[in-house]
C-alpha cells in the first residue's frame, strides 16, 4: 500500500486568529482509498483539504505528496496540483453553460478538444446531468452546481479527489446516486478524501475516518460498522 500524503508537524494559523486552524503532528494517507474527514463546523476540515489540495501552504512543518516534499514554487506547485482536484463546499461556476465549465477545466489541464467532448459527456452522465450540457451553470440550483463541479473534477481524471461537503443541500436521491459514484472511485485508482460532518455518510461509504477537532487529528482509523451500504 503506497503512501500518498504524509504530513509532519503541520501548523496553520489564519491572519488575525489566535488559535491554530491546523495543528497536525503526523498524518498519513494511502493511495487508492476513501477517507472521510469528520468534525464539527470550524474544526479545520476545509483548511486541511485546502492544504492537501496544495492551495494553502502550511506555515510550518513538512507536507509530502507521492514521497516528495512539497516545496513552494511557481512552477512545481501547479505541476503537482494537476494530480489533485478539490471540489469546494460552495463551488464556483465559470460564466457560461455547463459544458463550457467542463471544457474550461479540460483546457486548463491541456486536454485537446477532440478528447474533451467524450470526457464531458461521460462526466455529466456519471453525475446524472446528461441533459444539462446547454444549461447556464449559474442558473442551476446549489445541489446541481455541486454535481457540475464534481463532473468537472471527474472529467480531469485526477489522482486525488478532495470533496468538501459534497452532498450538502442535495435531495435524498441525488445523495444516494453520488455516494454510489464516490464509492466506486477508489476502484478506478482515485484517492478520495471527503470533508463531512455526517458520520453516517462516512460509514455508508465504508471510508477510513479521520476525526478532526480544533485543527488536531484526534482519531485516525476505521470506525467499526456492521455493514456498509454500497458493498
Amino acid at each position, binding site marked *: 500500500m503506497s503512501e500518498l500524503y504524509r504530513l509532519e508537524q503541520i501548523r496553520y494559523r489564519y491572519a488575525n486568529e489566535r488559535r491554530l486552524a491546523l495543528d497536525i503532528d503526523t498524518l498519513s494517507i494511502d493511495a487508492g482509498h476513501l477517507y472521510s474527514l469528520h468534525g464539527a463546523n470550524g474544526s479545520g476540515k476545509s483548511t486541511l483539504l485546502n492544504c492537501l489540495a496544495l492551495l494553502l501552504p502550511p506555515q510550518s512543518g513538512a507536507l509530502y505528496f507521492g514521497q516528495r516534499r512539497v516545496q513552494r514554487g*511557481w512552477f512545481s506547485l501547479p505541476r503537482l496540483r*494537476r494530480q489533485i*482536484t478539490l471540489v469546494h463546499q460552495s463551488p464556483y461556476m465559470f460564466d457560461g453553460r455547463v459544458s463550457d465549465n467542463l471544457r474550461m477545466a479540460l483546457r*486548463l489541464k491541456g486536454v485537446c478538444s477532440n478528447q474533451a467532448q467524450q470526457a464531458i459527456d461521460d462526466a455529466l452522465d456519471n453525475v446524472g446531468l446528461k441533459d444539462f450540457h446547454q444549461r447556464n451553470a449559474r442558473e442551476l440550483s446549489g445541489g446541481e452546481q455541486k454535481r457540475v463541479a464534481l463532473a468537472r473534477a471527474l472529467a480531469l481524471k485526477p489522482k486525488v479527489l478532495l470533496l468538501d461537503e459534497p452532498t450538502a443541500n442535495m435531495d435524498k436521491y441525488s445523495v444516494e446516486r453520488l455516494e454510489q459514484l464516490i464509492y466506486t472511485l477508489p476502484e478506478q485508482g482515485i484517492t478520495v478524501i471527503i470533508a463531512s460532518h455526517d458520520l453516517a455518510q462516512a460509514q455508508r461509504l465504508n471510508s477510513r475516518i479521520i476525526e478532526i477537532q480544533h485543527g488536531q487529528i484526534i482519531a485516525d482509523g476505521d470506525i467499526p460498522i456492521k455493514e456498509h451500504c454500497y458493498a
Partner: protein
Amino acid sequence: MDFIVESLRTAFALILSFDGEVFNTVGTSLTISSVAIVIATLISVPIGIVIALNQFTGKTFCLTILNTLMALPTVVVGLVVYGFLSRQGPLGQFGLLFTPGAMIIGQVILATPIVTNYTLAAVVGSDPRILPTAQTLGAGPLTGIMVLIKEIRFGIMAALIAGFGRIVAEVGVAMMLGGNIRGYTRTMTTAIALETSKGEFAFGLALGLILLGVALAINIFLNFLQQRSR
C-alpha cells in the same frame, strides 16, 4: 435660440454630407485615442491585477497615489511631457513633439491610472473562488490569471471605456503635445476649441455631436456584448 437651432441644422448637414474636414478630425481622434488605450491597457491590467492580488507594505499609499492620479489635470500631463519632448528636453532628440506619437504618450499617461484603478476594483470585487478553482483544475500562475481576466472581462471593458472616454474627450494633452495641426494632429476636442474661437460654432457643434455619438456607440457595443454573453 434661433442661433442654436440654425447651428444644429448646419452641424447635422455637415455630418450627413460626410464633410471631409469633420471626418478627418474624427479619424485622427479615434486613431490616436485607440492606440493610446490599447497601450494603457497592456500596462494597466497587469498592474491592477498584481496590486489587487498581493498584500505588500505601502499598498494603501500606492492606492492613494493611484486615486490621485485619476484626477491628473490634462494640462499638467501636457506640460510635463512637453518638457521631456521639447528640443531642450531629455527626449528632444526623437523629434516627437507635435506628432501623434507625443499625443499618444500623453494620453497613455492619462489613461493608465484610470484603467489600473478600474481593473483593481474589478479584481477586488470579483468572486474570491475564481483563482482557487482555476488552480485546483490545473491552472498555472499565468493561466490562472487568464481565467480571472476572462471572468472579470466586463469590469475590464468598463475600465477601457472609462479610460477611452477620458482621453478622447481631453483637450490639454492634445493641444500642448499635438499642436492642433490640421489633418495631422487636430482632434475633435482641439478642433471644437479652435473653430468655436473662430466663430464656426456649427462646425464645433458637429464635432461635439460626433463625440457624443462615439460615446453612445461604445456603450451600446458594451451592452450588446454583455447581452450576448448571457
